[in-house]
C-alpha cells in the first residue's frame, strides 16, 4: 500500500467511524441513563432517512427537510417513551427486548405501507456537492467531509452537555442513583422522556445525514443495528467516550480489513469485539 492510498483509507475509516458514532451514541446514551435496550434504534435510523427523502421531494430543500425530520423524530421519541417504554421500567430487560422487537415489525410495516419497497435516493445538497481531488483518479466529496465534521461537532456538544450543563448533571446523577435524584425533587420521568427522545433523534439525524450518500431501502435499520451494538459494547455500554473511540476503531478496522484481509473482512469486526471482550469483559470504558 502506498502512502497516499494509506492516507485515503485512513480518512475513509475515520469518516465511516464517525458516522457509526452518530448512530451508536443515542443507543448508548439511552442504555446508560435509563438501562433500556432499544432494539428499535436501527429503525429510527431508517425512519430518519425516509423522512428526509419525503420532505426533500416536497420542499426541495435539504436543510429544511433535515430540520423537520429531526423534530418529527423527537416527537416520535416522546410518544414512544410516554406510551410504551414507560410501562416497562420496572420489568425485566428481556421484556424490553421483546417490546422493541415488536416495534421493529411495526416500523418496517409502516415503511412498506407509506413509502413502498423501491430503493430511493436523495441528491447531495447543491452547496456541498463539489469534490476535492486527491489523486489523478480519486476525489473526496465535500459532503462526506461535512458529515464527518458534523459528527465531531455533535460529539463535542454531547460532551459539553453531559459534563457542563444542568441537564447533563441530572443525567449523570440519574445514571448512578435513580432514587437519590427522585428524592431531591427532580422529576426523573421527565428526564427519561427527554433522554429517550434525544436518543431517537440522534439515530434519525444519522439517517438524515447518511441519506444523500447511501440508498434508502427497506431493512436498512437492522443491518446497521448490529454494527451499532458492536460499537457500543466495545466502548462499554453507556459510555459516550467509549462509543466514540470504539466507533473510530471499528471504522478503521473494517476499512483496512476490507483491503488487507478480504477473506476475513466479513468477520473482522466480530473478531475484534470477541477479542476485546475476552480481555476486557466490560468493554473498553465501562463505568
Amino acid at each position, binding site marked *: 500500500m502506498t502512502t497516499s492510498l494509506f492516507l485515503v483509507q485512513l480518512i475513509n475509516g475515520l469518516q465511516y467511524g464517525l458516522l457509526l458514532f452518530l448512530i451508536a451514541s443515542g443507543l448508548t446514551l439511552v442504555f446508560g441513563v435509563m438501562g433500556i435496550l432499544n432494539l428499535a434504534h436501527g429503525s429510527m435510523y431508517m425512519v430518519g432517512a425516509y423522512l428526509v427523502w419525503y420532505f426533500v421531494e416536497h420542499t426541495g430543500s435539504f436543510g429544511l427537510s433535515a430540520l423537520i425530520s429531526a423534530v418529527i423524530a423527537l416527537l416520535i421519541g416522546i410518544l414512544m417513551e410516554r406510551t410504551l417504554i414507560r410501562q416497562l421500567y420496572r420489568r425485566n430487560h428481556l421484556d424490553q427486548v*421483546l417490546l422493541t422487537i415488536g416495534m421493529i*415489525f411495526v416500523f418496517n*410495516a409502516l415503511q412498506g405501507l407509506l413509502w413502498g419497497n423501491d430503493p430511493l435516493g436523495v441528491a447531495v445538497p447543491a452547496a456541498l456537492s463539489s469534490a476535492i481531488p486527491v489523486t489523478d483518479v480519486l476525489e473526496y466529496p465535500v459532503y462526506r467531509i461535512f458529515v464527518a465534521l458534523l459528527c465531531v461537532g455533535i460529539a463535542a456538544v454531547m460532551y459539553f452537555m453531559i459534563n457542563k450543563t444542568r441537564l447533563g448533571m441530572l443525567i449523570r446523577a440519574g445514571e448512578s442513583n435513580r432514587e437519590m435524584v427522585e428524592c431531591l425533587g427532580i422529576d426523573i420521568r421527565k428526564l427519561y422522556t427527554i433522554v429517550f427522545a434525544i436518543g431517537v433523534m440522534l439515530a434519525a439525524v444519522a439517517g438524515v445525514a447518511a441519506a444523500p450518500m447511501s440508498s434508502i431501502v427497506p431493512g436498512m435499520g437492522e443491518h446497521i443495528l448490529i454494527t451499532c*451494538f458492536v460499537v457500543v459494547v466495545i466502548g462499554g455500554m453507556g459510555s459516550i467516550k467509549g462509543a466514540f473511540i470504539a466507533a473510530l476503531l471499528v471504522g478503521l478496522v473494517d476499512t483496512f480489513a476490507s483491503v488487507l484481509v478480504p477473506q476475513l473482512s466479513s468477520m473482522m469486526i*466480530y473478531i475484534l469485539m*470477541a477479542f476485546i471482550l475476552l480481555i476486557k469483559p466490560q468493554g473498553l470504558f465501562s463505568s
Partner: protein
Amino acid sequence: MLFNKRTERIFFWVFFPLALLMPLFLADNTFFVSKLTSIMIFALFVMSLDYLVGRCGLITLGHAMFYGLGGYLFWMIAPEYEAVNFWVYTFYICMIAAGVALIIGFLVLRTSGIYMIMITLAFAQMAFYFFSDSIDFGGTDGLFIYVKPETSIFGLSFFDLDNPTHFYYLCLLSLFNTLVFFRVLIRSRFGRVVDAIHENPGRTTALGYNIFVFRLMSYVIASALGAYAGYLFTLQYGFVNPSMLAWTTSGSALVMSILGGMGSIYGAILGTFVYEGLHYVLEHLTEHWMLFMGALIITMVMVFKNGIAGYLEKLLEKRA
C-alpha cells in the same frame, strides 16, 4: 412428581395427547403435518434456549450457531449416498456440538449480561460468514441432503423419515423427551445449584460451588440440544442453508422464549406455537402481516407479565 405446578400438568395432559392424535385428523393433508413438525422442531430449539436464558440467566444471541451446526455437521460427517443410522449420528452430532460449545462456552462465559449477548453473537456471526462465504459448503445457496438416515435399533425400525407422519412422531417424541429431560434436570441436584446461581451467584460461590463449571455444563447441554434441533430441521426437507445460523434465527427463538414465559421450559412450546401460528395465519391474510404481528407482540408484552405461561399460571394456580 415431575411437574410441580398445576398449569404445567394441565398443559402436559392437553398438549401431548392432542399432538399424538393430530395426524389422524390431518391424514389427507401432509402439509399441516409437516408444518406442525417444523414448529415442534423449533420449539425444541427454543426450549434449549429457554433453559439457558430463563433458568441459568445466560442470555445468548448466538444459539442459532448450534442450530446451523447441527445441519452442516450431518452433511460433513455422513456419506453422501448412503443411509446412515439416525441414532448413531444423533450421538455424533450432539457430541461434536457439545465439544464446540465447551470451547466457545469457556470463552464467552467470562462475560455476562449484554456483553455475553454480544460475544455470543460475535461467534455466531463468524460461523455464519464461515459457511456463507465458503464455496465448499454451498455458500449462500446452501446444500442438499440426498439420503435420509434409517432409524433401526437392534434391527427394529419404527420410523421411516421419508414419511411425514413418521417424522412427525419422531419429532414429537424428541420434544417430549426434551421436556422431561429438562424437568428431571431442573429437579436434580445439578438443577438446584443452577437455580441458586441464577438467584444469587455470590452466595452460591460462598457455599463452595464453582459457578463457572455449572454454567459451562448448562451451556454445553443446551447447545448440544440446539444442534439436535438443527439436525432434525435439516432432515425434514433435506436442506441446509447458512440462514439457519443468521442472528435473526437466534432473535426469533429469543422472542418465542420470552413470549412463552422465560424459564418455564414448557412455555417454550406455548411461545413457539403461538408465534408461528400467528405468523402463519397473518401472512395468509395480508401482505402487511408485520404490522399486526408487531402490534400483537407489543400488546402481549404489555398484558403478560411473565409471558403466556405466567399468565396461565395466574389464572390456574391455586392461591397459596
